[in-house]
Structure formats: C-alpha cells, structure tokens
C-alpha cells in the first residue's frame, strides 16, 4: 500500500474542484433540467414531469437522428482506420532518421483552424471548386456538377479533421512493438502477410481501438461540420441539441437531448474502458 503524500492533494485540489464545478455538477443539472417544462421561447418552469422524455421516446424524428448519428460515426471511424493505419505503419517502420518530421507533417493539419479546414472542402467539391473547374476546363461538362452539401462531403470533412487522432494513436502503439518480432515470425516460416496479421496487427490493436474510440465519440458529438458541409437532411443528433437551445430556445428539450447524447456516447467510452482501460488513450494524447 502506497502512502498518500498530503502535498499531492494540495496540488490536485484546484483542478479537481474546477472539473467538479464545470463538468460534473453541470451534468447533474442537465438531468434535472430534462424534467422541467417548456412554456414559451426561453421560458421554462421547474417541474418534475416526463413530457420531454415522452416526446423523445415517441417521436420518430429523434430515433432517426440517433440511428443516423451512430451510422455516420461508424462509417467515419472505419474509413479513418483504413486511411490512417497504412501511413502510421509506413512511418513507424521506415528507417530514416527524419521519422518524427514525417509524423509531424502528417499531423500538422491538426493545428490548423478547424473551421478553415472544414470550409476548404467547399473549394474542392463546390460548384466553383477545384474538381468542377478542372472538369469544365477539360470540356467534360458545361455546367458545374453538384457534388457538395451531401452526406459524402460531411464524411470527408469529418475524416480530414479526425484522421490525425487515428494516425497518432496507431503510430504510438506500432512504435512500441519490438522490432525483432516480425523477423522472428518470418524465420519460423510465416509469410510477410501472416507475420503482419498474426504479430504486428494484434499488437497494434490497442492503438487502433483508442483512435477509433476518439474518432467515434468526436464525430458523434459534432454539429458544426454537418452545418457547413451538409445539406438540409444531413444532420446529426447534436444538431438537434443546437436547434433546441440556439434556435428554438427550448431549454428543457435541449437538456433532454444532451443527456441522451451523453448516455449514448458515454456508454461507448465505458465499454471501451472496460475492454482496454483508459491508459492507452492518455498515452497517445500526450
């Protein structure tokens, strides 16, 4: 049993108190507020009634949004894994001394303004975008082809923003693997592919899982990307929260939806921490 040092508590208490006041207590308030009654725009009454929850349970609009959010988050996660694994592997396995530079270059877009990176896809897929002007210059088409403001552009925008998280996580776990293991498998008669699938891939799964969790949860909680890159039908569950709070000023419903999203994505996090523990996550984030 380790002895607790009293100095640790002193150093920790400001952060712990801050998180308690700014995160934990507000989460409790979301739950309390979900039972309040909405009377008019921005006017609500303290109450204990289940009207908001009944609305959530009975309205197919909300169910559709939940389903859409989970589906889109899963698509983005899988695509990010497919796109991110190979570069992480190549960087981890190259012998050049400038490895860190290659990695830095690939995660550099992470530092660039989220909104600029997101809107820049309008310059690629939009009617005045790079692809359309190329097609018109080459004479393939006279009028711009509509490629923008649909689910595809939303997915592309998400992947572009969240891919660095995936690459970094996979890279960290690949970099920690003993370099002698794959050659050892080879000398024992495994083909390169077998050596990869049976040795390297399983050892990099923690990183893949951590990256996947981050991408899934970050996508599932977003609403800005669909607003910028999506059409009217491309909304996620968080967009409904945005609508309820910012547009309709219906605070109790906004609280109800927020608590639902917290439970949905929170259960993914809890499932992950049961399986993998949160250590891997904190390792890659630093």
């Amino acid at each position, binding site marked *: 049993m380790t002895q607790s040092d009293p100095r640790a508590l002193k150093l920790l208490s400001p952060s712990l108190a801050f998180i308690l006041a700014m995160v934990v207590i507000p989460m409790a308030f979301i739950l309390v507020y979900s039972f309040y009654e909405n009377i008019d725009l921005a006017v609500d009454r303290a109450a204990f009634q289940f009207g908001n929850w009944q609305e959530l349970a009975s309205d197919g609009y909300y169910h559709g949004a939940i389903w859409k959010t989970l589906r889109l988050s899963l698509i983005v996660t899988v695509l990010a894994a497919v796109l991110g694994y190979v570069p992480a592997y190549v960087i981890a396995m190259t012998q050049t001394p400038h490895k860190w530079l290659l990695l830095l270059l690939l995660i550099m877009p992470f530092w660039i303004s989220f909104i600029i990176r997101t809107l820049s896809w309008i*310059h690629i897929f939009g009617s005045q975008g790079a692809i359309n002007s190329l097609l018109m210059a080459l004479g393939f088409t006279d009028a711009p082809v509509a490629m923008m403001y649909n689910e595809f552009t939303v997915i592309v925008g998400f992947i572009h923003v969240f891919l660095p998280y995936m690459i970094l996580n996979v890279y960290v776990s690949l970099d920690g693997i003993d370099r002698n293991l794959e050659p050892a498998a080879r000398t024992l008669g495994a083909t390169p592919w077998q050596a990869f699938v049976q040795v390297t891939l399983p050892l990099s799964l923690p990183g893949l899982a951590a990256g996947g969790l981050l991408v899934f949860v970050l996508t599932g909680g977003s609403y800005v990307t669909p607003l910028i890159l999506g059409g009217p039908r491309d909304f996620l569950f968080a967009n409904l929260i945005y609508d309820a709070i910012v547009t309709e000023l219906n605070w109790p419903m906004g609280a109800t939806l927020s608590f639902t999203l917290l439970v949905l994505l929170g259960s993914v996090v809890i499932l992950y921490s049961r399986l993998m523990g949160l250590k891997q996550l*904190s390792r890659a984030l630093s």
Partner: protein
Amino acid sequence: MRVWSLLKFYTILVYGFMFAPIVVVLLLAFNDAQFGGFPIQGISLRWFYKLAENDAILRALKTSLALGLCSMVIATTLGILAALALVRYPFKGKDIVTTFLISPILVPETVLAVGLLIFMRWLHMPRSFGLLVLGHSIIALPFVVLVVQARLTGIRTDYEEAARSLGAGPIQTFFSITFPLMMPAVFAGALFAFTLSFDNITATIFWRPSGMETVPTQIFGMLRNSVSPEINALGFVMICFTLGVPILAAGVARYFSKHKI
C-alpha cells in the same frame, strides 16, 4: 519490395488528402476574382487589404486573442499543479484521479457546452466573456495535464535533492531548479491550451453572449451564403500563423533539450 512501395504510394495519397484543401485555400487567397472559388483570374493582394480593413474580423481577432490568453493562463496553471502531483507524489487512487482529470475530453463537447450553460442559467448568470474563459479552460485542462505530465516524467529529481541538501528552501528550489527544468513542458502545455481556445467553435457558439464573435464564429457567420475571398485571405494568415507557431515551438523544444544540464 513491391508491397512496400504500394504502401508508400498509399501513404503519399493520404498526405495529399490531408494537404490538398489547405493548399487550395493558400492559393485562392491570392485570387483576384470577385468570388472565393476557382478559376484563378490573376494574382493580387487585394483581399488581404480588404481583410485588414474588416472591423468585424479585427474585433473577433482581439476577442479570440484575449480569450486564448486568459484560458491559457488558467488551464496551464491548474494543469501544471495537477501534473506535478501525478508525477512527483504517491497517493491512493491515482488511476481514478487521472480518469477524472481527463473526463472533460470524454464528455461530448456539445453536451459539455449545454451543461455549463444550463448550470449558469440556474445560477442566473448570463452568457459572458468570463463564461467563455472558464469553459475554454476546462476544455484545455485535460490536454495540458497529459502533455505536461508526459514531459515532466523525463525530469530527474536529483538536482532538486542536491539543491535542498545545499541549503536551498523548498520555494527557492522550485523557482531556481524545478521551474527552469519544467519550462519546455510549461511551454508545450500553454501552446496547446491557447490553440484549443483559439480554434474552438463547437462550445463557443453556445457560450458567447450575443454580439460577441471569436474568429471561428465570425468565419462561421460569414459562411452562410458562400465562401468570400476575404475568408480565404484570413485562412492564409491563420494557416501561416498556426504552422509557424508549432515549428517555432519544436525549435524551442530542441533548443532546450540540447542545452539540458
């Protein structure tokens, strides 16, 4: 080896995917045309001049800088103290405390934003600049803790012990030995906190008082119809700035690591 070159080619394509939209913004910033898209009709700096005269954007820039600096100070101070406790002192329940410290990352940002907003409403406190500062600090805090913790682990305690045995008091030891050794960690954490605040839009939209714009919300507001050429110019400035700062930071970090005692 053929497979390896295929993998390399794939990697280059991913690099292309990551950089193509950024390059496009950089190019279009110099487009002389009336609209913010292609084709490029000549090179000019006119949109940069327009940008420098845009009061709304300049005001948003001031707000963002002030906000970034305030939240940077709060998040870095709290984060360093917590990271010191995690690295230096034994205590019970370290795993639980670490999980608790990174919990703001695990809560969806939209939910975090609504929660804090509703709490403030219950306290009868309207949206304010102060709310933005506190909110951005809480978003940055876990990242500061993780970054500083990772850097602190590498610092040995021998020097502090030597200073103490030579008669320095705990406070003197902290300021003349520990703190200088911690500088790279402090710098990295502070930079991270500032960037997170400066870049934040998801929570900011909920927390800002009406009429107050940060750079991201200002851009978002200007985006309703199309991408104006001024946004491209602003994008150019922001990209150069955000790429310049980490390169500078990496340089500073290398400087410190080379001159380590």
